[in-house]
């Protein structure tokens, strides 16, 4: 079996990819996909720790994270649709009538 550090490294890389995607991608739908990637990286970390520690708490937390991710994606896509109806675009860079 692969040691704990391998799982942690993979999940850390996934997490960084997800975070970078949220910060730098301009398409709102891709941004939400990157958020899912971040949350899945978290799940992988939790499962790896849970297996390593022989403790179930982390696995329980994973279920909650998955539920929240689903709810967040549902609301997020609904908001993207509402925005698309107004603007005919899902490009974040073009969504800036509200200035800083």
């Amino acid at each position, binding site marked *: 079996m692969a040691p704990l550090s391998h799982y942690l490294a993979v999940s850390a890389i996934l997490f960084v990819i*997800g975070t970078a995607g949220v910060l730098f991608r301009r398409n709102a739908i891709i941004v939400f996909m990157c*958020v899912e990637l971040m949350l899945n*990286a*978290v799940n992988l970390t939790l499962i790896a720790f849970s297996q390593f520690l022989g403790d*179930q*708490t982390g696995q*329980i*937390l994973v279920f909650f994270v998955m539920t929240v991710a689903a709810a967040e994606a549902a609301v997020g896509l609904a908001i993207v649709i509402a925005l698309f109806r107004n603007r005919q675009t899902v490009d974040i860079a073009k969504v800036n*009538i509200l200035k800083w």
Partner: protein
Amino acid sequence: MPPSSVPDLSSVARLVQAYSAYSLNGFVPEVILVGGFLIAILLDVFTRRAKSKSISIYFAIVVLAMAGIASAFQWQPFVAGQPWKPGHLIFPYSQTLFIPMVHESVLERGYAMAVVDNFSVFFKLLISVAGIFMLLMSLASQELRERSRRLGEYSSLIIGMCVGLYLMPASLDLTMMYISLELVSIAGYILAGFSRDTEHGAEAALKYIMFGALSSGLMIYGFSLFYGLTGTTNIIAIREVLALNPATHTGANFYILWIATILALVGMGYKISAVPFHFWTPDVYEGAPTPVTAFLSVASKAAGFGLLIRFLIFVFPEGTKTAAPVLDWQTALAIGSIVTMTFGNLAALLQTNVRRILAYSSIAHAGYMMAALVVGKADGTVAIMIYLATYLFMQIGVFYAVMLIANKIGSEEIDDYRGLMTRTPLVSSAMVIFLLSLTGIPLTAGFIGKFYLLAAVLTPDAATHSLPWLWLAVGVIVNSVISLYYYLRVAAAMFLKRPLRDMALERAGQTAPPLPAIQFGVPVSALLLALIVPILVLGVYFQPLVDFASGVVRFFNFDNIRY
């Protein structure tokens, strides 16, 4: 683990059974809210006509009032000389905990999802009051009246949001912190985009959910690192493991602990809109319906501070200087506090839209409260609670005044506020009182909040008799002076400046007929007075509030936090 300390299964089962009955007693306000949420959805189905939809708002007011009363009953009066009692625990657990279990039983140590102590009761009351004011405000809102077909979902979402807000300051477990925070956030995303048919509304919701999803993702990654370091998700157990096991905070693990702490603070900092997680604030405050803005800026910020206090003070009870296992989070937070208040105030100076000014000023207020959080301990916590209680009235009040004016003149630009004093003296004077209170002028509630906050920041160090946070206090004072400029700019526009239209006509050589007066009904004025009176009363008679807040932290037992 020696076998003698492992209780046999039947006794564990008995304990859990006895305790879950016990813990549901503490869960009554949340049960009322959840029941109310379900009934509100049904109510929405059974009211057909758009006109009768506003009944769901009245229903939500009743539910919040009942939940508030139920949480008031959970208050445990402090009797001097009596031993300190822990609160009710909600969903205690013991079986899955992976820590070296030491002699005392699990139940006495507070390994539970949430706790009902006076601290959480204080926040529940605060949130109920804010929610009731916000719903009363919604009745007068033009934005909501135009969308009255969807009022049922509006009020049920607010009740649902309150469940999360109630649980946030009560959480004792990272799982509960995450769930309650997300409950608040997801309801908040929908409410922020309630006017989704306008460009501003949809854009506000998108910005809110993007920053929200990012910061909650960072936060839960931090939580997973905490879990990996300590093997538990309970914040009290985390503290004990950090104290008992030096391996968790030495060597490379020290840096991992720092990363985990900072990532966890990102999610909470986003809720209280601290720099640099504030980007959503101005856009959401401008794009969301005004009552929602008021509610987010008060209730969600209050619950965020409750969560932060619980997390920081429970996991890292004292600074590095005294206790071995913790980080020097106080200096990091102090820098964050200064940056937050300075940025909020400087950015507010540049705005021309009143709502955006208030959004940046709410960032600055978060900075002030973070300054008290730096001090931690009893003084800082009392100061934050007093500040939040006073902040509730002035912030909801000022947004209410902005909403009333926007209903009539259809604008929130500072130039359109010129000469409003002659047109609507009541709302203009009320607005000035709220703005003065936000600045912290004496005889208003805002002064009391600032006073206790500065007193807490300027507490001398017990050992060295020096003032460790003098520079922070200076920062708060300088920032309060800066804030005076933009608050009074709004007041001056209403009281001293003449409308632009009149000036233009005069230059053309014509005499301008005065702009028509703006009339408001009795209920609207009554609510305005209901917000002004507490501000003026708390400005002179604040002892009950101070006693109330001090009673909360007595139960916290700061010298020796344990459950």
